[in-house]
């Protein structure tokens, strides 16, 4: 039903942005898992006395758990095409 021209350049740019967002999402997920594992290991190794220990935040903050950032890093300004 597209009655307007999406423009080849616009179409391709969106695919690039989509790929970048996908890569960003994978990296963010990997980062969160790694951090999560580290925290879990620390928790296991921690001494049973918890009186003086600060509260452990296991999950990543809400903002990090939200969908990946919409904008990938900017294209170098002088990059052609």
């Amino acid at each position, binding site marked *: *039903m597209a*009655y307007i021209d999406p423009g080849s*350049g616009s179409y*391709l*740019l969106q695919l690039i*942005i989509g790929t970048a*967002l996908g890569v960003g999402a994978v990296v963010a997920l990997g980062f969160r898992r790694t951090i999560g594992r580290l925290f879990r290991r620390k928790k296991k190794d921690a001494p049973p006395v918890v009186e003086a220990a600060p509260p452990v935040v296991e999950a990543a903050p809400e903002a990090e758990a939200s969908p990946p950032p919409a904008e*990938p*890093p900017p294209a170098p*300004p002088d990059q052609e095409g």
Partner: protein
Amino acid sequence: MTTGVVPASFRDPAGFVWSDNGTLYRQINEAYHAEYDALMSSGLYGVLVSKRLLVAHEEVAVEGPRPGAYKTIKPDRVELVSYPYEWCFGQLRHAALTTIEVQKLALEHGMSLRDASAYNVQFHRGRPVLIDTLSFERYEEGRPWVAYRQFCQHFLAPLALMAYRDVRLGSLLRQYIDGIPLDLAAELLPRRTRWRPSLALHLHAHARMMARYGKREIPQSARRRRMTKQALTGLIGGLERAVRKLKWEPPPSAWRDYDETKDHYSAEATDQKGELVAAIVAETKPRIVWDLGANVGSYSRIAASGGAFVASFDVDPGCVELNYRQTVAAGETSLLPLVCDLTNPSPALGWSHSERMSMSQRGPVDLILALALIHHMAIGNNVPFDRLGAFFAELGDRLVIEFVPKDDPMVQTMLSTRSDIFTDYNEHRFERAFERWFEIERREPLRDSPRTLYLMHKREGS
């Protein structure tokens, strides 16, 4: 009253708008049958209307003027059709955010906007709403947003130019009816915008991609690639952040601070003028008022409080911006500020001069306010009185006009740097010229001022 297909409604095979004795209808063609049913059954229509993001409509049993109709709908009518090149920065930004919000909700309901034209947004009861009910299609998983380029050209590019270069560049939309070409926007924007991630991506990189691939087909390898819904949502979110980051603050200007700094009026004259406008509105009960040279809209508000819908025109984008902000802050529903240079008002534009109406084609209205304006037209722009009378008679049936004589301090200031070639500029000549088009109903000299306020109505047949 016009009857027939609205000349601007011809691009989309899904349907078109037509008018029958002043009532607007939209014919939905069979080609759009499935998409329309999806819009209505998905719940999206209900959500958008309840959030006042889409104009409401009712389905009617009226036959459209062309074959191939699936349904006919009667949409709510906006008070006055206005165009993006007549909006201030805040209005265009608000319209952009409305489009984004609509697209986000559409995706949540399994649909997507298939265009993102700024002309599909109109101000209705004080807020921007999408008026094109046929702008939706069922979302197809993996497909990029077909309206991305249009959104960037119609909204992001002009907003960035207005915010980063000069607010007057919004008038480029008058020249480029399908939005500002991205290569032009990229060239006009300051270099520092290349380091703003959102603008670097959606304008600068976008312009280069369009230049490189503009004339080429999309390669087969790219056609097979898909854009996930999560990525598409991310793109829309990025566009929203890009728009939200764009800000513009009106600089101090003579007109912006006119109300506070005017020393050529006594408080008594100002109050009297306001009371006279209120009394005339109460007496003549206009449905629609155009306030020409409205500044920040003080007298427009007086007229609106009398029950009229008021379009509040001014040449200064800063005044219009402040006027619009006040409209939004106060939740005013019957006032629409617009940018307009009366010495060069909006012409008819587009294909066959008929896609966008001229200013006068959107009239005539019930009442014109022309307060503290005539000297700017007659002396500032050398327009003779009879031409001014003809112009006002084209725009409205009644006229409230303030005559500002030569000995007024404002006129004296205007004449201080030029030779006085205006030998006919006096009240007698003014009345004689305007009486060709209007009958004078009232003459009210303003107290403590050399100025006079007139109420006139148009002569039969003029």
